[in-house]
Every structure is written in C-alpha cells, then in structure tokens.
C-alpha cells in the first residue's frame, strides 16, 4: 500500500513541479517567476524525502534540509534584488 | 569574565541543545557533551547578532499559541485548497492592520502567523511599525480580517511580550 501511495505522491509532486515550471515560463512578472522557483524548491524537498522513502534510506534528508535553507536564501536574495537592486550593500 | 562564560541567550542555548539531540543519532553521552559545548559556544559566537537583551517573554504561553496556529494552518490549507479548486473567482482585499504590538520580534511573529493562516499574507510593515499591510485572498470585509487576527493572534502575543 505504501508503495502505491508513494508512487501517487511522487506523481502528484512531479505534476506540481510541471505546473510550477509553467508559471516560471508564463510569468508574467519577475515576482511570479521567483515565486514559481521558490515553490519548485519546496517541491524538490518533497521529492527528496519521497526518494528517501522509496530507497529506504535516510541519506538524503540532509539534502532536503539544505534545499530548505538554500531555497530560502535564494528567494530572499532574488526578491531583494528585484526591489532594491543591490543584494548585499 | 563571568559574562563571557555564561549563556547569554538561555532560550537559544536550550533550543540548540535540544536540536542537537534531535540531529544526533539518539541521545548519548557524546551527544550531550557536544550539545552542551555547542549550546554554549554558538550563542557566544553569535552574540553580536542579537543586539537587544532577550525581551521578557512569558514563554509558557508559547506552546498553546503554536498549537492554535498549527491548527489554523491545517484549516487554512483546506480552505485555500477549496478556493483553488473551485471555479469561483476569489475576492481579494488589501487590509491595513493597525498594530498594537511594539517589539519588532513580536511584530515579525505576528506577521508570520498571518501569512501561515487562513487566506492572508503579510505583504508589508510600515516604516513606523504601526501598520501591517495584509493581502487577504477571499474576504468579505476588512474588519472581519482585522478582528480575527487581533483576537486570535495579536492578543496572545501581547500577553507574551509584556
């Protein structure tokens, strides 16, 4: 049962990623793209966790943690770039 | 000297210590010792980044607050999900929320809470930190939003940050 749920979950997250990419392409404004990217980061966390469950290993949890940290910093930096220009000033 | 050896941020130290125990593979002598070292060392290292001394917090109220928020998040998620999936067009509104909280950390916590809960996102905080701009996804009136936030979140927070 877990296997089926797992595949369903993976399928849904993958589909979500596709939708995010759609928004990334569509825009229309830069914040939309950043939002899409930010959401993609979160999807990636989910995917990594699901991968870990699929493989039965916890080796990838730290990768997920890192995506969370890095995705946040990346989004913040990008947002700051959009409104302020200089990210570090 | 005593200051240099103390725990400048006891709460932070506690959180770090507990986090370390979580991160380590089970609690052991090694993890306790190392956790203690880190719980002491990291606040020492980052002390400069916390300019103000810790505000007096009635922190025992925190868990209750968090539970409320957690519950609201779940509910919020369902309501947003419903809205997303329904063909109805949302009726969004920008709400200017007058803040009564003063402590910046408290304001930030409130703003975060608002973002995580039903149909609202904190979009901006005014320069004088007296006003919060909230974007509500689907709300009938401003006052409804303001009242809900004030009673459910701001009041408990004001209690905590006295």
């Amino acid at each position, binding site marked *: 049962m877990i296997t089926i749920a797992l595949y369903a979950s993976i399928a849904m997250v993958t589909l979500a990623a596709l939708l995010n990419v759609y928004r990334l392409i569509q825009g229309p404004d830069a914040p939309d793209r950043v939002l899409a990217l930010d959401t993609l980061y979160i999807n990636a966390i989910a995917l990594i966790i699901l991968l870990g469950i699929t*493989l*039965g*290993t916890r*080796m990838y949890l730290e990768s997920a943690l890192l995506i969370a940290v890095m995705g946040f910093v990346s989004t913040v930096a990008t947002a700051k770039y959009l409104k302020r220009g200089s990210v570090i000033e | 000297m005593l200051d240099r050896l103390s725990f400048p941020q006891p709460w932070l130290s506690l959180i770090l210590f507990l986090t370390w125990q979580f991160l380590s593979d089970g609690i052991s002598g090694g993890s306790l010792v190392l956790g203690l070292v880190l719980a002491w060392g990291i606040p020492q290292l980052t002390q400069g980044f916390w300019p103000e001394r810790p505000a007096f917090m009635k922190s025992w109220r925190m868990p209750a607050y968090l539970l409320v928020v957690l519950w609201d998040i779940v509910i919020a998620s369902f309501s947003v999900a419903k809205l997303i999936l329904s063909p109805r067009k949302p009726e969004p509104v920008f709400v200017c929320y007058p803040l009564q909280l003063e402590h910046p950390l408290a304001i930030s916590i409130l703003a975060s809470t608002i973002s995580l809960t039903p149909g609202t996102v904190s979009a901006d905080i005014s320069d004088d930190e007296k006003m919060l701009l909230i974007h509500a996804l689907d709300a009938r009136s401003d006052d409804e939003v303001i009242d809900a936030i004030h009673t459910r979140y701001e009041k408990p927070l004001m209690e905590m940050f006295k």
Partner: protein
Amino acid sequence: MELVFALVIGALTASGVYLLLRARTFPVVVGLTLLSYGVNLFLFASGRLATGQQPILGSSASYADPLPQALVLTAIVIGFAMTAFVVVLSLRNLADNQDDHVDGNRKQDEDSEEAKQ
C-alpha cells in the same frame, strides 16, 4: 535511463556552448555555468549510474563508484571559484569600458557589421 541522462548532458552542453558564444559578458557567464553543470554531470557519469547505492559504507549492498563523485565535488568547488572570478572580471570590464561587451567598448561586434550589409 542512460539515454535520458545523456540527453540532459547534451542539452546542458548545447545551451552552454550557445551562450558562451554570445557577445555580452553576462550570457557568457551563464553559459559557462550551464557548461560546467553539463561537464560535472558527465564526469559523474563516468562512474556509471546507480540508484540507491550511495557510497556510504553499510548503507546499501553495493556502492556507486565514489571516485567520480569526489572528482566532481572538487570540480564543483573549483568551478565556483572560477565563476566568481569571471563574474567579477565582467564587472571590472563594465567599469573600465562602460560596456559589457566581451571585447570591451565595442558598440557593435564584427557580426553586426555584416548584418547591416
């Protein structure tokens, strides 16, 4: 799966090369980054593809080739250093020439002259 992986590397290389050949520093830097992604994946693939065989002893029955992984790690870090340098060099170029053309203050490159004809 191998074909999918190969196509990914091909796409990264092609995009990287195309951008590398642009006339402005910024796309060139982006191109170099894409190229290095492709190259890193390629070097990684030289140890073959493995699923769930992370080279952490005791975590699985067999292990992926750890050596290319170590090499790629080195390559990533070096690539980062190089990218940082070239980004800054682009800034310096911009500062010195008031233009971000890769050949300095050239309002038009060799190609555009031909384009006009």
